[in-house]
């Protein structure tokens, strides 16, 4: 078991050096492991399972986020337009002509963040603009989309806009985005039925994407990475436990996470959240935050619950 533990620590160290932007160094890991102290030998088995889960954590650093924002623009927004333009020009190879027509479309597009200006969506949009070298003119805020005359109906500020693209980092359950956007999207579609309203995210769970598709009038909901059921740590088809490791017990790991999750969430919190918001059971995080759909043992907050996180989460304060 010691050999396997060393192997896990080594893997995490390599992740720390190459991908995790220097986070989760040796000292922080030791401190985090102190959280797991129940059972024989000071929680030896718990510590091992904690390391195993941490070694499967997917972290998206600044560089990766920027690249994936480029991918959202290039693959999810721009390419379908390019394809359509090129077909309309009889499959021309004249890239200048194609670009010229694309610029016309771009000017009629608007990119928006999800959430209010203090939330992460807006800094994402900033990176999005930088990476894709876009003019400020193609960015707007939801509040800038509509005109509300003192008397009279709500109208679109610019009814010529053909594409509204909402950019987000993560679609978990989809509920937050739906609450925030549903009414506005419906208004846009009502005022301009020809407008294409899209929601594009870096990551999205299958359930979350479904929720948005079913509850918001988006024309397109598409993440770069779709997280199906196999990304839930303890799902029957979990991809983290499909390789049988000699010392790792999925049932034990789940029970451990559930136990500590219950202590991390505030008292009275619904048990459904003990393994991450709405039973998310995820192992993902971003440079700027860790979604609460991720297992709480990763991000549990030391002020509230005396838990040393390994990747800190910055909760939204309501």
């Amino acid at each position, binding site marked *: 078991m010691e050999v396997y533990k060393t192997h896990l620590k080594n893997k995490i160290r390599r992740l720390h050096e190459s991908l995790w932007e220097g986070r989760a160094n040796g000292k922080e890991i030791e401190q985090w492991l102190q959280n797991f102290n129940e059972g024989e030998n000071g929680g030896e088995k718990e510590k091992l399972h904690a390391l195993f889960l941490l070694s499967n954590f997917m972290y998206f650093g600044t560089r*990766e986020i920027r*690249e994936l924002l480029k*991918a959202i623009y290039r*693959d999810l927004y721009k390419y379908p337009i390019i394809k359509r333009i*090129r077909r309309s020009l009889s499959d021309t190879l004249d890239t200048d002509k194609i670009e010229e027509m694309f610029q016309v479309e771009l000017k009629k597009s608007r990119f928006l963040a999800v959430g209010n200006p203090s939330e992460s969506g807006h800094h994402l949009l900033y990176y999005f603009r930088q990476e894709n070298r876009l003019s400020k003119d193609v960015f707007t805020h939801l509040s800038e989309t509509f005109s509300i005359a003192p008397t009279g109906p709500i109208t679109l500020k610019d009814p010529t806009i053909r594409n509204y693209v909402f950019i987000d980092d993560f679609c978990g359950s989809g509920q937050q985005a739906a609450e925030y956007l549903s009414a506005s999207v419906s208004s846009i579609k009502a005022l301009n039925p020809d407008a294409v309203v899209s929601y594009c995210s870096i990551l999205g769970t299958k359930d979350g994407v479904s929720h948005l598709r079913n509850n918001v009038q988006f024309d397109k909901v598409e993440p*770069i*990475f779709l*997280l199906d059921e196999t990304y839930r740590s303890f799902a029957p088809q979990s991809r983290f436990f499909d390789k049988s490791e000699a010392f790792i017990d999925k049932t034990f790991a789940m029970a451990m996470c559930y136990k500590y999750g219950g202590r991390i969430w505030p008292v009275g919190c619904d048990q459904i959240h003990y393994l991450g918001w709405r039973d998310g059971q995820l192992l993902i995080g971003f440079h700027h935050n860790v979604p609460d759909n991720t297992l709480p043992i990763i991000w549990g907050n030391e002020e509230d619950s005396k838990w040393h996180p390994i990747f800190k989460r910055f909760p939204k304060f309501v």
Partner: protein
Amino acid sequence: MDYSIFYKDDYTSPDQVNGHWDYFISAFNSSDRVNNVFDLVSADIKYWLVFPEYGFQPEEVPVGSHFLAGNDEAECMLGFLRQSGIQAHHRVCIDITGFIRPHLIFMICWLHGSGVKTFDAIYSEPSQYLKKEDTTFSDGKVTTIRQVKGFEGQHSPDLSNDILIIGSGYDDILISQVAENKNNAKKIQIFGLPSLRPEFYQQNILRAELASESVGRDTGEHHNSYFAPAYDPFVTANVIAEIINKERSMKQLSNIYLCPLATKAQVLGFTIFYLYELSEGGASIIFPFCNKYAKETSTGVSRIWKYTVELP
């Protein structure tokens, strides 16, 4: 040239792949994804190619499969292509998923040389790799590191500013082999991001990191690594263009080496770029040749892509 204007479509199952071709060519392997596509694609003539590196026995492959034989990728593929009946005007579709990389690269050269202007390539993404970051694709020793036939270039004796662009996949041993073979060249790696699945990127980096000593100075220095989608040959070609333009802007390049070791989709991108922009100069595609490859390394099917490749 902006290669991203080339057409590509993605599907969730093989029966959605639309089109009809005169010839459909696929490399036999054990995976369902490759076999299902072969069955469902619409073509007048279909060929299964059996690569000796996979070690299949006659009883393991469909009747009528073509066993490739020859000393190298040129002999193997010419032995098939010259009797295949394929001509310049034919509509050709290739499932590149199971192809051995140098053979795929050579075949595209042959198609180009034969006057074929466009062909379709199908690529089926895996859902998971069986051994995650421990997955190896090559199963044997590296027996030689050399240029792929047809892509040998005209290199300069001045080696003062050589670059080696590696499409870095999971096979860290292959990355090390080729990096050390071109010891003096500046190594630039292209990593697959977006990757085929979100965790593949992390697994890829972990494996490639094992080769960091061989790759050399650029460890941790971001300007020597780039990203291109693992599933997009055309954006990959654009990224290679970006790399070369940037390197040229800093100093005149003496020799350029390309080595695609990642997904077959990226292999396609490397090849396309070479044919369009590097075939006249001091540039070549090099490869660490193995005598054996694993028959199956993945499970499940994610997306299926169809790329319409337009040759120069």
